[in-house]
């Protein structure tokens, strides 16, 4: 206790700060960093949960990079990202931009857009899976058949399965993005718009020169957030394709589903850990690249 009494006020503050920080630091170390480190170590080992772990060096990574399924899955993951993120941002911005101007039943409409975000992804995936079924049970195909249009294969095609899964995933995320965009729009000072009006600037120019540049922090946040979401897509794919996980012919399989399959069907934990490390690296690189690109523009 004497030791504490001899400290200066500044030092005492540091002691107090660290004693409060110790709880989250300890929590993150035990719950996050230690398992992450464990996964990296495991990726150099072979382990089926039952036998002892054995070191295999880079074998898991070699196997991964020479596996054609991995490259297929890698491509799928980026298709989810490259279609999903821009599409969802454009749609949500368009909705938010117009919704911001609507005063009639504003709160109700906003709540309606937000509803899908609150729904369980599993329940939603199963509902959409039913929508996509062929005649006689599928909603979409029953409508098509009733007006004499041939059925669409939706989930049962290597071409249309991925977009069919992506559609509800984009839709489910819209509510959140709309709310964030609207908050961003509301934070733009109205004086800019008044000045533009006085100068007689067209609405397109206002959008391009005022609204979008000032929304940059919001856009950065949403791009990073939604990219991570699409890179980690799992619930929708897993639940909509349980009969042929990630199928047909791996056309919808994302990386997370491959990890799940390797870990809990093949019980090849080392190989699954190697895939996890690759996913982690991809997420890290994509996030850093996006932050870097977006940050440059901020200082224009």
């Amino acid at each position, binding site marked *: 206790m004497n030791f504490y009494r001899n400290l200066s006020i500044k030092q005492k503050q540091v002691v107090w700060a660290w004693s409060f920080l110790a709880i989250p630091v300890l929590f993150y170390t035990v719950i996050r960093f230690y398992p992450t480190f464990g996964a990296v170590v495991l990726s150099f080992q072979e382990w*089926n949960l*039952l036998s002892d772990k054995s070191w295999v060096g880079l074998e898991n990574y070699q196997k991964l990079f020479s596996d054609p399924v991995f490259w297929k899955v890698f491509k799928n993951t980026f298709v989810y990202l490259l279609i999903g993120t821009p599409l969802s941002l454009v749609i949500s911005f368009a909705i938010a931009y117009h919704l911001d101007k609507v005063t009639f039943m504003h709160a109700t409409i906003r709540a309606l857009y937000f509803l899908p975000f609150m729904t369980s992804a599993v329940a939603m995936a199963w509902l959409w899976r039913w929508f996509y*079924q062929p*005649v*006689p*049970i599928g909603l979409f195909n029953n409508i098509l058949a009733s007006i004499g249009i041939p*059925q669409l294969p939706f989930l049962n*095609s290597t071409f249309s399965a991925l977009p069919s899964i992506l559609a509800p995933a984009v839709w489910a995320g819209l509510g959140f993005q709309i709310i964030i965009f609207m908050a961003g729009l509301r934070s733009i000072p109205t004086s800019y718009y008044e000045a533009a009006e006085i100068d007689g600037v067209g609405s397109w120019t206002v959008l391009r020169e005022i609204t979008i540049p000032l929304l940059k922090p919001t856009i950065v946040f949403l791009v990073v957030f939604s990219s991570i979401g699409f890179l980690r897509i799992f619930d929708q794919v897993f639940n909509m394709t349980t009969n*042929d996980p990630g*199928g047909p012919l791996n056309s919808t399989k994302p990386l997370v589903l491959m990890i799940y399959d390797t870990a809990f069907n093949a019980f090849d934990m080392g190989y699954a850990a190697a895939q996890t490390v690759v996913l982690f690296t991809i997420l890290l690189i994509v996030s850093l690249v996006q932050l870097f690109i977006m940050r440059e523009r901020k200082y224009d």
Partner: protein
Amino acid sequence: MKIWKKNLTGFALGAGLALGATASQAVEIEYWQYFFEARVNAMDTLIEMFEAENPDITVKQTTFPYADYRTKVAAAIPAGEGPDVVQLFYGWLNDYVEAELITPLPLDVFPLEQIRAEFFPMVQAMEKDGQYMALPTAVRSLALFYNTRLFEEAGIDGPPTTLDELVEIATALTKTDASGNITQVGIATGMNAQDHHWWREVLVRQMGGEPYTGDYQTVTYNNDAGVAALQFYADLQMTHGATLAGFMDEPQAAFKAGRAGMLIDGSFRIGALDKTRGLEWAVTELPAGPDGMRSNYSSYWVNAITTKAEGEKAEAAALFLAFITTDAAMQIWLDTVGELPAKPSAALTEQNSNDPVFGPFIRGLAYAHTTTFVNESAQRQVLMDAMQRMLLEDQSATDSMAVAADAEQAILDDYYD
């Protein structure tokens, strides 16, 4: 003070009694299986009977949801936290034996020759180096379910007994709407369900082939027999239009909804179909091949003693395992769960083999094969993909079979190397 004294005397007395009766000390063993109500009830009944016979042994049953069971068991047993007697799927056993987590069944309670003679032949897969590693109470096999109402409606007298009749009847039972969309399938199919077993152990053999070498380490279906079997299966949809992959999401869903004339499924489906109101169904043996050959696929869950059970716990575990593999226990399991007895002496009783529902499954056991899987879902995926390549990418059966054989061999090699 008085109470304290009383307790002490009681304790001393109890301890004295316990010491005096070392031979019959109470032993508690733990039993694990996955949660399925009928199975839990059947096991409760068996435990009650066992404890009545062996008053010094108590058995504690613990269950887990099916989805978590494999992971839970795999995490608990190596950590020494698991059960003394555990129920495992036969396909998992190898990994447990290799990791030395399973004790071979003691020969004094389970004499080798007697076990070999008493159980159905496919249970011999549980024998390693002259000892049995585990034993099933019940086994499952496949049969052909058919919707009697749809059969009657179409004027068909009885179920198919050959593959040709199967095609003919399935075609007759299929219905389409005005624009040609299928609204009722003759036979509900899906490699993701039980059809991959039907294809592997039944169709390939009926076309004159063997799916694997005897040790199940080498694929041997990439030949005329395999191609013929795949072509036959694909033709049900592609040529005869008597089925549709993914029709009503799952084959058993189509059958349950009365939208499928036939379905090949396991004995474990009986319970669910029994509960479906308005569905009239019957069961028959799987159709015979072109030369009259019959085959079937059988799978089972086994009971094994873990290395955690030592000393008197091991003895108690062995006694318990012996009890739940008696003919009487198997009959209780059949009556409660609907799974078939693992011994001919219990299965082929007059009453069981003439049972209209269980009979076809039980008769199937006599000629059933059990595939030794290394990763069932991956090996199933190989056949699902083989079908999808034909249906979605117009690949020929010959090419698709070759790709599938390579893919499955790679899975087997990866495991056995």
